[in-house]
């Protein structure tokens, strides 16, 4: 009897997951039972329901700094909740941007769209707050399998199918590799619980090898070089809302859980994984930038830029300190608004004109000043230029890295910002400076994306100046 009570009491700290599941089920049922004419309300319902969930998420707080249930299978803390809330916000924004697309190109399966996306979100929740490799694995797959379905969403298109195939194959492959690593971890540590594993530490090569296999699996999700090659193709092929979701949400969730596992399970190998990450970061940032320069398709362009951004994010991870964690989460938070703003513009224009080439954007300012300005803000923010939020997040993440005396690494990263600034400015140049013979016609964006863009813009501009956010993060962050 006690066992049962304890079992159920385990759910008591899983509020977010539970509420999300509720929304999930609601959407599913609504999708089932609303007829053809109900479809048009379905989206609004789904978004509203999820919005409620988002709001609810912000009310949550754990009374102690760290709680777990199911014997440490599930872990949570203020930081976990915060990260989930951030993901919630991102997802909501993606919904806003996806609305138009669902309305016109994807009428029939809009329900499935929301359902799948929410389930991936659920997977990410589990991945983030897992205290055990089993739950972690389940969360990971829950996050990635529906994602594959979503990448394949518009069935007519070649590249969508190709992208999906590449994604699912690489995902399966990488999860195989990661599982191999996990199995070795199990073999060497003798446990799958993070906190126990942390103590069962014997400096033997097999453990290091296991760690590296595991890191490879994570590297696939965060798309670090050399595990990044799928990224560009999938981003380009997938429907733009899905790409946005991939580029921010799954990346953010993966980064956080990666950081969490590194500083708990592999705490004693800090030396090793810091050296490894040092090189991975350098390669990632550089390759991402170099490949981004030559891109003409904006979605592909942003894919590579997001690769290099992932490198920057890891600068916070490599420190492994509380400050590092705060900087990382802050960076993800800012990056979410910035990148989603860019994708919002792109999807907006793609939906209405079908143009994604950089040359199509020539002279955008003359026809669509608002969109152009927001895009410019996003580019500047990605490039890390004040006053936009990107500057602050970059500054803090570099600060976190230098805390560990990694001046050389930071210097290389900074030199890379020059390259990145170069290609971000290329977009600005296209929109503002270049003239075009047939510029994009003036666009009347739909209400939802207007809301989304407004939120993103406000976020990009003001977030840097509102210090309490970062203060809060650093107050609840933890590290080695």
């Amino acid at each position, binding site marked *: 009897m006690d066992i049962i009570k304890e079992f159920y009491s385990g759910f008591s700290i899983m509020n977010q997951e539970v509420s999300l599941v509720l929304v999930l089920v609601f959407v599913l049922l609504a999708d089932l039972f609303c007829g053809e004419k109900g479809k048009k309300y379905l989206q609004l319902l789904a978004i509203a329901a999820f919005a409620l969930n988002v709001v609810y998420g912000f009310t949550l707080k754990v009374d102690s700094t760290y709680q777990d249930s199911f014997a440490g299978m599930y872990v949570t803390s203020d930081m976990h909740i915060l990260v989930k809330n951030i993901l919630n916000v991102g997802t909501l924004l993606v919904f806003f941007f996806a609305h138009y697309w669902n309305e016109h190109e994807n009428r029939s399966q809009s329900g499935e769209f929301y359902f799948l996306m929410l389930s991936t979100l659920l997977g990410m929740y589990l991945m983030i707050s897992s205290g055990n490799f089993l739950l972690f694995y389940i969360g990971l797959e829950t996050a990635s399998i529906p994602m594959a379905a979503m990448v394949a969403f518009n069935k007519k298109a070649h590249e969508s199918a190709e992208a999906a195939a590449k994604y699912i194959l690489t995902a399966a492959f990488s999860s195989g590799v990661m599982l191999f690593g996990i199995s070795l971890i199990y073999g060497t540590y003798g446990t799958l619980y993070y906190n126990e594993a942390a103590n069962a530490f014997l400096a033997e090569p097999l453990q290091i090898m296991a760690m590296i296999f595991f890191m490879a699996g994570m590297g696939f999700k965060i798309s670090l070089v050399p595990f990044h090659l799928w990224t560009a193709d999938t981003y380009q092929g997938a429907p733009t809302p899905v790409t946005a979701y991939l580029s921010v949400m799954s990346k953010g969730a993966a980064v956080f859980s990666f950081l969490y596992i590194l500083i708990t399970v592999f705490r004693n190998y800090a030396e090793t994984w810091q050296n490894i990450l040092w090189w991975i970061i350098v390669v990632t940032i550089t390759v991402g930038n170099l490949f981004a320069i030559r891109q003409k398709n904006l979605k592909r362009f942003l894919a590579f830029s997001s690769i290099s951004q992932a490198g920057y994010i890891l600068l916070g991870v490599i420190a492994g300190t509380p400050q590092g964690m*705060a900087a990382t989460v802050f960076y993800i938070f800012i990056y979410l608004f910035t990148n989603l703003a860019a994708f919002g513009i792109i999807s907006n224009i793609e939906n209405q004109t079908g143009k994604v080439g950089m040359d199509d954007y020539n002279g955008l300012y003359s026809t669509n000043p608002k969109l152009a300005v927001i895009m410019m803000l996003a580019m*500047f923010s990605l490039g890390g230029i004040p*006053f936009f939020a990107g500057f602050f997040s970059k500054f803090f993440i570099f600060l976190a890295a230098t805390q560990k005396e990694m001046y050389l690494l930071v210097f290389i990263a900074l030199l890379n910002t020059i390259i990145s600034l170069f290609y971000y400015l290329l977009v600005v140049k296209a929109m503002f*400076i270049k003239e075009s013979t047939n510029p994009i016609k003036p666009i009347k964006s739909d209400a939802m994306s207007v809301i989304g863009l407004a939120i993103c813009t406000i976020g990009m501009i003001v977030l840097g100046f509102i*210090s309490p956010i*970062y203060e809060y993060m650093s107050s609840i962050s933890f590290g080695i």
Partner: protein
Amino acid sequence: MMAIIFCINGEKKNLIRMVMAAGALAMLGTSVYLTLDFLAQREAGATAEFLYCNDPIPWYETLNINYSVGVDGISVAMLLLSTIVVTTGVFASWGLEKLTKEYFLWFLMLSLGVFGFFISIDLFTMFLFYEVALIPMYLLIGLWGTGRKEYSAMKLTLMLMGGSAFLMVGIFGIYYYSSMDGNLTFNILEIAKNHAMPIDKQMIFFPLTFVGFGVLGAMFPFHTWSPDGHASAPTAVSMLHAGVLMKLGGYGCFRIAMYLMPEAADQLAWIFIILTGTSVVYGAFSACVQNDLKYINAYSSVSHCGLVLFALLMMNKTAMTGAILQMVSHGLMTALFFALIGMIYGRTHTRDIREMGGLMKIMPVLGVCYVIAGMASLGLPGLSGFVAEMTVFVGAFEHSDLFHRFFVIAGCTSIVITAVYILRVVGKVLFGPVQDKHHEQLTDACWYEKVAAFGLIIAIAGIGLAPLWLSNMISDGIMNMLK
């Protein structure tokens, strides 16, 4: 200010201009008042290193980032310079028709960054404003520029960003060595007070910081953004950029690199003396054979700004005072130069001195102003250039060893070379017979151009005739730093 402009509908160009002019004049008034009040307080014996310091508004407590501002003699001088140049710049770009609103918005952002940089005491805010001042250049040049504008704009932005990459590492270093007892700070004064950075670390971070600012200060060999950038920038932008923005470099070298890492500055000075000494002569020489007016002035800016850094590195009161004076004077006269070049270009549609001639007859006012600017630049007594250069040379002569002597004397030769290229331009462009018959029905300066030019000339002559108050104000700041 930006808000006001932003609210105005872009069609009402004149209204925008009015607002701009009003705002700029307001700024000018403020800074003049600030200067007077500052001097008054010094008279009254206010001995604090920085005056008007607000009590630091905590921003990011955990990182100990505050918003704290204050001014000392040097920054007051710089603010005065900036406001003058901004105001005249507004008038100089009065005739601009294309996208006026956006233009002035970026222009304001630029000036905002500049002001913020000069008044901030906190490294973080300082760096923030620094970058704020850098980025508008891209669009200002790229959109409203001329010639190979896109190339130049990109080059300029990237090179300056490269500089700030060096700089940022330096700032992190300073931050993490900012105090003995763990509580790190970004506040310059506290860092200087704690003076906690060990010498071997200084040897690493001083060059980074100095080069970082040196790029903006157009230090050889990092100066090549300057000719192209200036050549393609619109008038007011090259005014503000050469006049004020390049001063950020010198100011930063002084206020951050040398003030916070004195030992390293002392030990590594020789390297940078070689570089800056080179750029003094080098810039002057390469200005002699340019044919584009803007290139000539860009190179002369390289030479003059080189003199600024050169004097700073001498590290004694007189030389440093001279350096700041040189910043002010160069700011004013180069702004005047670019304003006039813009006006001439706007009429003749060429900047190639071989295609012009006898303009003095056609547009006497511009001609006379140009001659005055030239005289200021070649250091004619009674104009600001002379004051600055003499102070620099006398101060630099304090070092009696052969190495310093050599470079100081090399610097002295630059004043002759300056005379050469200035007179070359004056002789070719203003004097002599009219080259191009079409030029003969060109008009002379119109009212707003006159306002811009005369404003600057008055400032130049004012400093040139009565330099004492300024140099005292500055040297007072310097003394506080040297303590």
